[in-house]
């Protein structure tokens, strides 16, 4: 049998072809002249930024005339663009310049917007967990300084002049139950790569006849098929003996892919249009959930794929949503998507305030602009463009997060148990 020879030959062929096929070198593109470059950035922002009304464009153009006159390269126009981004007052407004990208460090804990003091999440096996940090700890000092709040922290170079901290560990002074602790956390330098997978969490609460399904939606970090599949597996398990109500915890969603989230809890959202985006020019694009598939502007979203058959709730049950200031972007869009569903109530604190669609463009020198490009609206047509208040305000005690003593969970549980579906 010559099969062996054949396979060797094929392997050689494939490997030589692999090494031979390499992308030809790209000629470095020449960017537009600085004046044109800046003007196109302005035109784009004025056209597409949802918050462009916050900027006095005529005044801006007058004020930046001088910058343009002296600009030699497109980099000389960055201060002007940063100025516009600041004036937009848009939490999603960024400029990214590839050559100025900052090194990334990983500590594995997440703090609460906008002060960035309270620790609300610690990744398993992260430096933060190894150092002994706990959810609910309050950071008093980082390396002897108070933590940098939102206004100063959330920008990248060139729009943020702050010096980049490249140290390999940080000293935290924290408060826990009235005591101060000094904790050292390692900062692991991370090179480009995929975010870790944050598995969603589910747990049955309450007695059997009045069981409640508690589901925490974690950050969806790009594991498209796996995430909604895992969520539905959790829901199916909890609903094995039918639950009479659902509690969906959105309090720690910093962003992620809204289509995956919708696909994950779609069976609780219901069929049909769930809301949409409204652009500054008044155009609307609807989101819809149908037969386990998610559509945006009538186009199927591949991120919504679920492996296996779609979970079907045993019966229609009331839903309680838990929100916090850390509920952000896609998390807020989920809150919007649920709005208008019968038997729904939200608990917690107002959300971060970015229930928007981020649009972005490349500029001629390779830098990128990102802004909020559209508001969201719910199935009744109500527009959302800022922090969304819960139906019932409950202060989150982060140190008790996810436990029986969690005040938000207790309030939600009380409400659910008072619903007819959960009546004894």
């Amino acid at each position, binding site marked *: 049998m010559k099969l062996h020879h054949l396979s060797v030959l094929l392997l050689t062929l494939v490997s030589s072809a692999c090494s031979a096929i390499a992308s030809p070198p790209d000629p470095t593109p020449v960017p537009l002249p600085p004046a044109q470059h800046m003007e196109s950035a302005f035109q784009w922002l004025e056209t597409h930024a949802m918050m462009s009304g916050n900027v006095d464009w005529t005044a801006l153009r007058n004020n930046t005339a001088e910058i343009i006159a002296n600009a030699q390269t497109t980099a000389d126009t960055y201060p002007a663009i940063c100025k516009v981004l600041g004036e937009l007052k848009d939490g999603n407004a960024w400029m990214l310049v590839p050559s100025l990208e900052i090194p990334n460090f990983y500590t594995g804990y997440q703090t609460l917007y906008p002060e960035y003091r309270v620790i609300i999440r610690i990744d398993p096996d992260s430096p933060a967990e190894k150092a002994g940090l706990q959810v609910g700890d309050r950071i008093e000092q980082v390396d002897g300084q108070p933590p940098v709040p939102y206004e100063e922290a959330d920008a990248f170079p060139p729009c943020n002049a702050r010096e980049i901290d490249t140290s390999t560990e940080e000293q935290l002074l924290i408060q826990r139950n009235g005591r101060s602790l000094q904790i050292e956390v390692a900062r692991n330098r991370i090179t480009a790569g995929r975010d870790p997978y944050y598995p969603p969490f589910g747990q049955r609460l309450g007695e059997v006849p009045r069981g409640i399904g508690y589901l925490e939606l974690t950050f969806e970090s790009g594991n498209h098929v796996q995430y909604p599949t895992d969520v539905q597996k959790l829901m199916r398990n909890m609903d094995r003996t039918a639950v009479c109500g659902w509690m969906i915890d959105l309090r720690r969603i910093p962003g992620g892919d809204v289509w995956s989230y919708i696909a994950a809890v779609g069976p609780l959202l219901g069929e049909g249009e769930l809301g949409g985006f409204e652009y500054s020019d008044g155009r609307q694009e609807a989101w819809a959930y149908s037969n386990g598939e998610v559509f945006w502007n009538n186009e199927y979203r591949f991120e919504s794929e679920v492996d296996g*058959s*779609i979970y079907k709730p045993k019966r229609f049950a009331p839903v309680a949503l838990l929100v916090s200031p850390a509920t952000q972007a896609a998390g807020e869009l989920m809150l919007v998507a649920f709005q208008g569903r019968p038997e729904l109530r939200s608990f917690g604190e107002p959300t971060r305030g970015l229930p928007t669609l981020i649009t972005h463009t*490349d500029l*001629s020198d390779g830098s990128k602009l990102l802004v909020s490009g559209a508001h969201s609206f719910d199935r009744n047509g109500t527009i959302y463009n800022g922090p969304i208040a819960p139906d019932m305000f409950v202060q989150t005690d982060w140190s008790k997060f996810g436990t029986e003593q969690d005040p938000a969970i207790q309030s939600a549980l009380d409400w659910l148990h008072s619903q007819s579906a959960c009546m004894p």
Partner: protein
Amino acid sequence: MEQAPAASKINTRLETAWLFPARLLWLTGSLIALGLFIAGLPLHAREIHELYRGDIQTSLTQNQQGEVVLSPRIGSAAARAGVLQGDILLAVDGVEITSAEQADVLLGGEIGTSVNVSMRTGGFPARSLMVTRTSEEGGILLSYGLSSQFAVLFVLSSEIVLTMLCMGVAVVIFRYRSDDWMALFSALLMIVVLTGFSLPVLALANRLHSGTFPHWMDAWIAFGFGLLILFFYLFPAGRFASNLTFGLALALGLWLALGLGLSERSLLIWYLPRWLYISAGSFWVATGAAALIYRYRHSDSFQRQQIRWIVWGASASTVGLMLQIFPSLFSLNASTRVLYDFLLYPLGQLLKACLPLSIAFAILRYRLWNIEIILNRVLVYGSLSVLTMLGYLGTIFVLHAFFTGLSNPVISFLATGVAAILFEPLRQRLQRGVNRMMYGERDDPYAVLSRLVRTLESTPSANDVLPSIAETIGHSLKIPYAAIWLDQDGTEKMAASFGTETSDLDSFPLVYQGETIGRLEVSRRAPNEDFSEADHRLIENIAQQAGAAAQTVRLNADLIRSRTQIVNEREDERLRMRRDLHDELGPMLAAQGLKLTAARQVIRTRPEKAENLLDEVIQQSQQTVTDVRRLVHGLRPPVLDQLGLTDAVRDLARNHSGGPALEITAPPDGLPHLPAAVEVNAYRITLEAWNNAVRHAQASRCDVKFCIEQEMLVISIQDDGLGMPEEYRAGVGLRSMRARAQEIGGQLKVDSVQPHGTCITVRLPLSS
């Protein structure tokens, strides 16, 4: 002999009532597959073209106002030139844009060329930019000197060639064996699985439903999958190998049907968790493989050959299908995509082609459905088109790669020329190759004969000559059975055979020096397939060579036999002489000795007693002399020495008064001195012939003629008796006469004489 040909054991003939529905089903399935394929072809071509041609790397959508909205790909040339996300496209190279399709056509073009794009951002004034057309995949291709048209040509031709190969084989099967449902089934499987699940069909599915498959496509896939597994269960006998496979088939059908009926989203198998879906699919494939293995172990060698081919073909085809489908589930970057399109996918195509080819081979080589002749042409011209296409594309590839200065028309012209030059020699070689596969070396008689000669030379023993001739014939002509029959003493005996006998036999005489000494029996390649002219010529040629060899074998056997006979006869003779000497002469001489001793003792005392004794001894010694004479006569008739051959014969006749009148003719100066063996044998043969004439023929006259011709003693004995019956069986007398003649290298011939009578002619060589 009773064993039926293996191929006819498989009876999958359709009842007349089922003929129409089965053909209808076949046509429907094939037409759906073909329809999907043809409908998807332009879509697929467009996808490939768009991937490899240059454009400005921008997606185009139309908003509610009908304006075309640009979304440059991140980091694309358009973005670097200054096209912004969400810009409204106004004009391309001065042509006003009214639709996304129009814009797509205008923006596409050769890599490296520039296009003038006019657009506006929101309500701002229009602006124009020059954008260079690029394509990452096309760029890689271009670095090998290949254009996007080549990509389209390459991919489409690989699709079309495979489909045409499948259709060719399938249509031949349908045309000639649509009464055999297993044949129909294989043809349908080939089309549905290979044509029905090709990239053009998937492109069509994607177009019809952006996202997951439309539901009827799931049903189509379930149909194909079920067909594949069922084929494994049923092949080749058309029956389930066991009750277990029957049960499995029911379960499979139920599973697929449940999937179609139960889930509102459509097919169950498509939405099972992936691991379950994959393991269930693998389970069914494994059962199919197991069924085939089971069948393989429980079938005869002929069926095994058939199964082996199809198993190889189906496995290779499945691997090819996986090779094509698996990477397409992932998003590929440019270089892996090029690798996929130009290496992996064509490799998959080649592997997929193994299924139609193996089915064709099973039909051709192992007479699966007895339609090999027609397929011969399909195979030749099918492979020819593939090779010509490859030659054409290869030439283009080489010319592009090494002579970058040549323009496209020149290259096409040269490539066409090369393909045209290669065509005829290629066709001849292919035809020869296919013929050799089907007919052995029919078209190369010289090779067969020289191999035969070599075989004969290297055969160590005469006994092996005929078997190796039979084997050579069987192998060289690719026939299932060959046998050599030899005439021996008037009866026919099988001397050698090869293969298993089939019912369709042809016979060719084995002739040596004009005498038919046996025959060569060969079975046809298929029941209804006569040997062609070329076959006949070759077999007759072989028969001539085999005739000489067979004669040699026969003579060899005769020689051994006669030698044995001579030895046996000599030993018999010695035995008789010993008995005679020991039993008769011995006692007699001993008695004489005793009597002489007694006589000596009494010769003085009682002389008369001694005298009596001596008298007795004298009497006994006379008796002894008579006995010795009798003994010697047994060895050689003394009359020959006394009278000579002619007078001895005459003397013989005189002793039989009342017999036929004997007329003896001899040369006037008498016969020369004859060697003793010739003389004795001539005497005995004549004696026997005379006896025959006297005893059996009731002849009234017998002429015996002696003469010398060419150093031979020729005796002819002619009587006017009853003569020999038409088909006589040689009696003991005739056989012993012949044996005596052959013993000394002579010949004996028996002829009938008109109006009645027999003439026996004997020729005996005088010198040894």
